[in-house]
């Protein structure tokens, strides 16, 4: 019996350590970090300028961020996608389209549910994933109302012609639009916005919502701009005109 008990105690000690460790390291998990809270990045998309067949933003994003294309539609990775829609219950309703991506919510449920705080919000409002910390549990995908997240379910290899400014995508973690944070930090616009201006309809406007003189804050102030599923109270920082 005494031998039994000693074995038990050993296992017990190991388990106790496992219980206490997370509690000790529990100081982490803050909501906002990095960058400067002087800026608040956001976007307005005028869908009246969005042609259903145009894929300028979509193509530019894939190229800029080395987003691979998987042939199976249910496994493919989408940082941005084009959505087509029709009014329900209206015969011969016109088909319209808009791009959708991560909306960089003020209250991001994806970050709230992430057990290891791999998803977090920067002080300038950009919601990011630390892909070196993400454990791939996919709770964030279940919690995001906008389907903005994709799990990388295959290994991705380096490709000729890939963008050296972006890493290649990492298997086993969840990824999504980071608003081209690497470009923003260089003072540039996100790749989708630039491409939309160059070869698309020019309906995407990016800027600082904190700056009262910026074009985005002007449009948002005009209160013509709407948010998708505003009822959820997440306050997305991507606004739409004409939905």
């Amino acid at each position, binding site marked *: 019996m005494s031998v039994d008990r000693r074995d038990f105690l050993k296992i017990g000690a190991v388990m106790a350590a496992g219980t206490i460790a*997370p509690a000790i390291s529990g100081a982490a*998990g803050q909501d906002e970090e990095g960058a400067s809270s002087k800026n608040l990045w956001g976007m307005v998309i005028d869908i009246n300028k969005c042609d259903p067949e145009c894929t300028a933003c979509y193509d530019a994003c894939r190229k800029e961020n080395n987003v691979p294309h998987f042939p199976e539609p249910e496994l493919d990775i*989408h940082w941005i*996608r084009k959505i087509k829609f029709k009014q329900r219950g209206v015969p011969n309703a016109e088909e319209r389209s808009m791009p959708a991506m991560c909306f960089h919510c003020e209250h991001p449920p994806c970050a709230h549910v992430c*057990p290891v705080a791999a998803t977090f919000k920067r002080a300038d409002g950009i919601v990011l994933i630390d892909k070196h910390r993400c454990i791939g549990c996919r709770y964030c995908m279940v919690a995001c109302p906008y*389907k903005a997240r994709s799990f990388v379910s295959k290994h991705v290899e380096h490709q000729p012609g890939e963008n050296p400014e972006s890493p290649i995508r990492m298997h086993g973690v969840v990824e999504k639009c980071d608003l081209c944070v690497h470009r923003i930090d260089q003072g540039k616009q996100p790749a989708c916005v630039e491409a939309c201006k160059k070869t698309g309809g020019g309906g995407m406007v990016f800027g600082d919502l904190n700056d009262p003189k910026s074009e985005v804050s002007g449009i948002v102030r005009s209160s013509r701009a709407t948010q998708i599923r505003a009822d959820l109270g997440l306050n997305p920082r991507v606004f739409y005109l004409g939905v």
Partner: protein
Amino acid sequence: MANVRFRRIEGNSAQYYMFMAVAGAVAAMAPLSALYMFVNGHHVTGMTNQVPWGMPIVMAIYLIGASAGSLVLSAMSSVFGKTEYQPFARIAALLAILLIVAALMAIIMDWGRPDRILVPFFHFQPRSMFSLNAILYNSYMLVGFLYLLAQFKESKFWKKALGIAAVFIAVGVHSGTGAIFGFVFVRELYNSPLLPPSFIAAALSSGTALMILILYATFRATGRLLDEKLLHGMGRLMGVFMLVVIYFLFIENVTRGYAPKNYEAASFLLLHGGKYTAMFWIGLVLCGLVIPSLIVFNPSTGKSTPWLLFASALQLAGVLFERYIIVIPAQVMPLELFSDKQVTSVFLDGRYANYSISPVEYAYSIGLFGVVIFGFGLAVKFWAMIPEEARFPEDVK
């Protein structure tokens, strides 16, 4: 109350080694299929970007439930004064620990990056139900273990104190597990304040069903005496728990279905969801709850051991369906970006997704049962878990 005497099994027979070899081989399927998933990527499973949680999560919450149920049953004798359950206290506590270990395996091996197992120890997100549950599960394992240890000491006080702690934490663990889903407010089929309590109810019913089957099999296989009246009593207990499950199920679905914004979700689950609707009505309601309730509450079948074993098996399968119905259909339903517009996209927006269990997930799930059975077989050989005989208290006097 006569003292119950526990004795290890010899475990030298050829049958024992055969049994352990088979159980070990089945158990090995779990880590092997997890390795296969990790090396190839999750595209080898049925899980997709439309349905990111599949069978591993179903198994995890199933095993957690059965574990919490076993632990509460184990505490019946020391905490609730049900002395007739004393002979089973050790077996039930052991099972509770093995089941939670298997559940944690189910969760961790399903991560895209199980190699990052240490990350949760260093990063914590107090708003995340997963994060809170990690602490709950670990504390639960620890308390369950100490509680089992107390069973080996003749201290009434420790048995009771740790038993009470175990019951509280089992309830906490299960509420937390229900909350993982209940708190997801964007999916109508998840979001419900009733999920935590109804999880506990199903945990108790399935935990009892599992105990009935395991006790019967264990006493049979070891040739020890088990008074079947004890099993019949547990059967009635299972019946009461099943009625509570039915009640929660009824309230939850009626409340959900009443709101127009949920019409689609409610009718998907209850009316036109194809295999999910079939699982709900036939798998869960009919086979998992109604038939076993009729069996245990009918005076003649309720006192017949074969019938009781049948009812327990049905209930165990029914709760597995229940777990499946909780996890999967909520993800299969498309997320609505607009309530008034029909949406399509290359990312399958606006479409019902499809999920079917892949062979590797079958191997994974069956392997997890193997882990529990293998661990059980090993433990009863090295520690005195099984009583020499289990009689109804009045019969002993």
